[in-house]
């Protein structure tokens, strides 16, 4: 980061307000904490991605010949744990949310800056435990920690992995708490609820899930660890326990956790679609209500992960029906984004390309989710590659693509530099193509019946698996490129103006990068969100040379 501070040294900003390692590690500035998160999250993303590549390489051939079965099991377990708890859940909220929410609502900082720093340290403690777990030989429970396998039948590092998830969970809870209080208490004069950017609404809904869902999985994970240590029997059928209780507690959080991952992404896409269409969002109220609706209804559907697990027939019917209710607000979001483009004045900058990709991939991810909500289909395709494909369409096609969209959109604000547009477009294309090639064949594999978490598989599944692995390599290049050109832009990128895209929103009214306390003068808001009719289009977006 020293580079960034030196480079943009001429302009006063949060980056060069203070110097030295201490000024970063003990900072309470939400923008600096966001950068700390950005670095640590990127680190974990590439660790999780490395595991993913090894998984895909192993699956190139039907026989389990690259790694042993136990190693393979560790790979997919740690891929899941790292990606979910250390990338997907914190990524958008802790990096972009942290950086942008105070700016978007016209506040100097989050309500509790030191708790914000504590969140990052908790994340790092959890992350260290995760790294320890990996280095100490890994863990092979699957990220779901299903009992009694995790409690009685494995002798890998389950406890340290559980603790890692537990601590990271509290980091997430505190982030959510900070956002809720900030959005309620720190809005600038005139920033009423009806004027909040949808990005903020999305984070508000996300925070509700983080606060009310995470503790339940935390206690479930604690009980798993205790059960391993003391053999309490709470989830052990040999002692009268019910393994399905663990699944209930686990999915009570872990299904809504999917919405922790995707809702902030939806917030990003709303901002970007409006900006590059020069339009108000189509149906602001519906969009805001939809994210809240998804967050709340998301709590009612968890047992759809358990349709073949041995739950009651009636419970299965109820949870299946409730699951469809989530479909409605999701459909509204997709249609409204599309409708927002209608009669716009659309340009195709990199963030917008990612937003297009998001709309398409999220549509596929959402529609295939409806297959899984349907009991008769779910019985066949649950625990197969169909599920793997579905949730990667939502998590990677949705959330990661949205994250990249957001990183490109706000990179000028964060770093004060423009990234090279051509390379950006190329990376977006690679991500889109690579992603579809990786995961689309998995839908077919799933319906054919290839179970997930299989180290070796029958030969008739090979060709589709080869396609998938080929896609994964393209995807990997698509992910490495932005990493490279973002770093490059820190030194060589064109200096970003305050508002390179001509975007609405308070964050664009301060300098790029913003000063330490965000605004020179306390902003007072007198306009609705996305007032693109009042904002001139940018003359020329500065490009890197």
């Amino acid at each position, binding site marked *: 980061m020293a580079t960034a501070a030196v480079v943009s040294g001429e302009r006063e900003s949060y980056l060069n307000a203070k110097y030295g390692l201490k000024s970063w590690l003990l900072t309470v500035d939400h923008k600096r904490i966001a950068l700390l998160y950005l670095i640590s999250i990127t680190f974990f993303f590439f660790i999780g991605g490395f595991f993913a590549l090894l998984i895909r390489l192993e699956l190139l051939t039907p026989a389990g010949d690259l790694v042993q079965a136990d190693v393979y099991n560790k790979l997919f377990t740690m891929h899941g744990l790292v990606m979910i708890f250390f990338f997907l859940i914190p990524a958008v909220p802790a990096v972009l949310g942290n950086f942008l929410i105070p700016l978007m609502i016209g506040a100097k900082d989050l309500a509790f800056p030191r708790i914000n720093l504590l969140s990052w340290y908790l994340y790092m403690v959890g992350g260290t435990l995760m790294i320890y777990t990996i280095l100490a030989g890994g863990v092979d429970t699957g990220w779901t920690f299903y009992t009694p396998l995790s409690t009685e039948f494995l002798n890998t590092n389950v406890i340290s992995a559980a603790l890692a998830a537990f601590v990271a969970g509290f980091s997430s809870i505190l982030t959510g708490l900070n956002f809720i209080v900030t959005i*309620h*208490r*720190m*809005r*600038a*004069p*005139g*920033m*009423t609820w009806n004027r909040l950017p949808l990005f903020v609404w999305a984070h508000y809904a996300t925070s*509700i899930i983080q606060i*009310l869902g995470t503790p*339940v999985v935390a206690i479930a994970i604690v009980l798993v660890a205790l059960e391993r240590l003391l053999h309490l029997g709470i989830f052990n059928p040999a002692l009268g326990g019910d393994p*399905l*209780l663990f699944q*209930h*507690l686990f999915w*009570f959080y872990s299904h809504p956790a999917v919405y922790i991952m995707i809702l902030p992404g939806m917030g990003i896409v709303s901002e970007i679609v409006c900006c590059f269409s020069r339009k108000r969002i189509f149906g602001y109220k519906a969009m805001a209500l939809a994210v809240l609706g998804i967050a709340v209804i998301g*709590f*009612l559907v*968890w*047992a759809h992960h358990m349709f073949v697990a041995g*739950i*009651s*027939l*009636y*419970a299965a019917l*109820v*949870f299946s029906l409730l699951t469809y209710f989530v479909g409605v607000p999701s459909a509204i979001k997709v249609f409204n984004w599309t409708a927002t483009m209608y009669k716009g004045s659309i340009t195709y900058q990199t963030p917008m390309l990612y937003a297009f990709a998001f709309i398409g991939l999220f549509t596929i991810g959402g529609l295939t989710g409806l297959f899984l909500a349907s009991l008769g289909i779910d019985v066949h395709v649950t625990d197969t590659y169909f599920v793997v494909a579905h949730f990667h369409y939502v998590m990677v096609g949705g959330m990661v693509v949205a994250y990249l969209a957001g990183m490109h959109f706000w990179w000028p604000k964060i770093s004060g530099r423009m990234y090279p547009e051509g390379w950006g477009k190329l990376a977006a294309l690679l991500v889109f193509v690579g992603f579809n090639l990786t995961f689309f064949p998995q839908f077919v594999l799933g319906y054919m019946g290839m179970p997930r978490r299989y180290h070796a598989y029958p030969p008739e599944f090979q060709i589709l698996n080869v396609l998938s692995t080929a896609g994964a390599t393209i995807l990997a290049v698509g992910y490495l490129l932005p990493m490279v050109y973002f770093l490059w832009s820190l030194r060589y990128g064109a200096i970003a103006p305050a508002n390179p895209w001509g975007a609405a929103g308070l964050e664009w009214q301060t300098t790029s990068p913003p000063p330490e306390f965000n605004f020179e003068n306390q902003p*007072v808001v*007198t306009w609705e969100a996305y007032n693109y009719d009042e904002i001139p289009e940018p003359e020329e977006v500065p490009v890197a040379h």
Partner: protein
Amino acid sequence: MANHFPNEAEATHDHISSVGSSVAIWLILLVFTGLTVGAAFIDLGPLNTVVALTIATIKATLVVLFFMHVKYTNEKLVPLVIVSAIFFLFLLLGLSMGDYATRVWR
């Protein structure tokens, strides 16, 4: 409103509870504790659990309203937070138990 920070004018902390009312609530809580212990020894059939939980809920409500000053707050948000916590707790308990209660084999 437009030129003020949200909630700037509202102050939630101005209530100072009187010693008398606090002691009164304290006494009621002790009495209810005695009641619940006493009721536990009387056979009311399935009502025993209902009575015990009702008394617990009354006690908890008293603590929330008076000791935690919720009764005196002019802030609508705090009750909303409490209600949503209880609502989601009941979702967890209710929907999980819904599965157990309707299984053919329990």
